[in-house]
């Protein structure tokens, strides 16, 4: 019987033959944390050890509330900077750099075949590069810093075969929303999800990141796209380490193989208050909203900004809408600037904010009042997440959010192409 990529990567790390259901004790290649490093440091200090065991494995990126919006956030950032200096942690990215998942990828830490663990639920993102990559909690990260060891259960794998070709105006975001809507927010709980098929191979790394990022919204432990020529090309001059791709055997055993044909897919929208409450755009067109957000670790890359700018060029944001643009990282921001994309946004009346998580988690930069509605390219629309308990969040692709920002109500982007 063949093995899945998850069984192979965890087997390599454990130094023995493993299969789904086995519990392994492993040492990861890289450990990610962000602003929550301040809380992790507090836990680490309770462990009674002085030094981080493998400081070169830590990657710390400040992104959740950057720059600090209050004295408390500022104090957290200061604590983290002090710890980084004291423990000689080489890979630290301060507030200018952007969202951790984008910065981590751009700097070549997300590599095929690696085992990556992070104190963030969207750590699943790095599966886009063929890594085994999962989110864990703060206590676990603190213990990893001290011991460089953790137990993991080898997950069963669900294979999602994406068939057919996308029509114009429909994107990876629409595909993953449709899949989550059909399969449910807990379909992949505790499991690995492997995205395969012609469409996935045709996707850019930016689009594959959308799939792997949102695998978390199906409950997945990790998402995965098979590394290929595109992956290797993307990593050229970026990879921080040697790597070799790990792929599933053709006769590997899967918990399920799910087929999704995207040939006739129309743009999709996740409606309040769960990510699996997904409807085709035709059913929600005309819904009034007040704040647009184009950005986040799901859809804040150059590819996304270019699509949105293509729609907003020469147009104005509707007077009832506040349109926030947040490039996922400084690097993406600079590229967008050079290509004139940022200018298009500014001309259209958008608010261009600094790279970071922005209002996605409801901490700053555009909080919703009671009765307000947001249309966002983010990955989560839980009730109250972006502000008031009595506000609502719809999720869609950058194209849908851009087109809707012009009309002041949810609109089909295909009319703007």
């Amino acid at each position: 019987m063949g093995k899945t990529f998850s069984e192979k990567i965890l087997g390599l790390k454990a130094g023995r033959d493993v299969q789904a259901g086995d519990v392994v004790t492993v040492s990861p290649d890289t450990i990610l944390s962000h602003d929550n490093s301040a809380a992790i440091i507090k836990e680490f200090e309770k462990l009674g050890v002085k030094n981080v065991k493998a400081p070169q494995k830590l990657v710390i990126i400040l992104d959740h509330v950057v720059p600090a919006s209050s004295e408390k956030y500022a104090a957290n950032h200061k604590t983290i900077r002090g710890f980084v200096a004291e423990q000689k942690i080489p890979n630290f990215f301060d507030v200018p750099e952007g969202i951790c998942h984008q910065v981590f990828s751009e700097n070549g830490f997300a590599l095929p075949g690696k085992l990556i663990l992070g104190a963030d639920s969207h750590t699943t993102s790095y599966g886009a590069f063929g890594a085994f990559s999962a989110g864990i909690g703060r206590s676990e990260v603190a213990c990893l810093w001290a011991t460089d060891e953790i137990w993991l259960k080898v997950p069963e794998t669900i294979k999602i075969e994406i068939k057919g070709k996308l029509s114009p105006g429909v994107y990876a975001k629409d595909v993953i929303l449709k899949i989550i809507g059909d399969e449910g927010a807990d379909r992949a709980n505790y499991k690995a999800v492997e995205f395969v098929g012609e469409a996935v191979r045709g996707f850019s790394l930016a689009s594959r990141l959308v799939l792997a990022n949102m695998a978390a919204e199906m409950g997945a432990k990790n998402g995965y796209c098979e590394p290929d020529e595109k992956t290797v090309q993307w990593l050229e001059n970026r990879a921080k380490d040697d790597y070799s791709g790990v792929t599933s055997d053709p006769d590997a055993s899967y918990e399920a193989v799910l087929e999704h044909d995207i040939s006739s897919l129309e743009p999709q929208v996740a409606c309040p208050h769960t990510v699996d409450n997904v409807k085709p755009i035709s059913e929600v067109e005309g819904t009034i909203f007040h704040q647009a957000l184009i950005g986040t670790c799901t859809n804040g890359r150059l590819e996304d900004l270019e699509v949105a700018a293509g729609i907003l060029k020469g147009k104005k944001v509707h007077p009832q809408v506040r349109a926030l643009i947040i490039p996922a990282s400084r690097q993406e921001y600079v590229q967008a600037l050079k290509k004139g994309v940022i200018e298009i946004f500014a001309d259209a009346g958008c608010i261009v904010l600094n790279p970071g998580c922005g209002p996605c988690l409801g901490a700053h930069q555009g909080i919703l009042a009671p009765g307000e509605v947001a249309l966002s390219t983010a990955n989560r629309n839980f009730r109250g997440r972006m502000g008031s308990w009595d506000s609502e969040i719809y999720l869609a692709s950058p194209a849908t959010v851009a087109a809707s920002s012009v009309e002041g109500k949810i609109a089909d982007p295909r009319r703007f192409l």
Partner: protein
Amino acid sequence: MKKGRVWKYGDDVNTDVIFPGKYTYSVLEPEEMARHALEDLDPGFAQQVKPGDVIVAGRNFGCGSSREQAATCLKYAGVQAVIAKSFARIFFRNAINQGLPALQSEEAADSIENGEEIEIDFASGKIKTEKEVFTFSPFPESVLGILKEGGLIPYTRKKLEGIE
């Protein structure tokens, strides 16, 4: 074994309603976290919950963010255990790592009513109500070890002291 009152909720109780994102980097003390537990979902909970009470919920409890405060705030609010039809993966790990037992039982989650008094026997894997007894698979040794020490941090500290 302590008796506890049941607080019953539905499916997909997510980390944002257990512990809102706006507090994640500003509320750092566990006792203060407890005062915000479930405040959006059930504003009365934090004030009325008593030590030993139990949360009973449907599918996918704790879905969403990896924030460990979702487990911490419940533990410090006095919650003895969470019983659900299923748990989101990271929440399950976080709960155990905070010393908060997370028990999976479809039948118990279906039958037990809000406000009921129940008893949990962790060693034998039994949940007892006035009328019924439900079983759950007892935790493996490693997990029991973490729960016994009150969480992963004290457990690991003890282990590290043993090495030195």
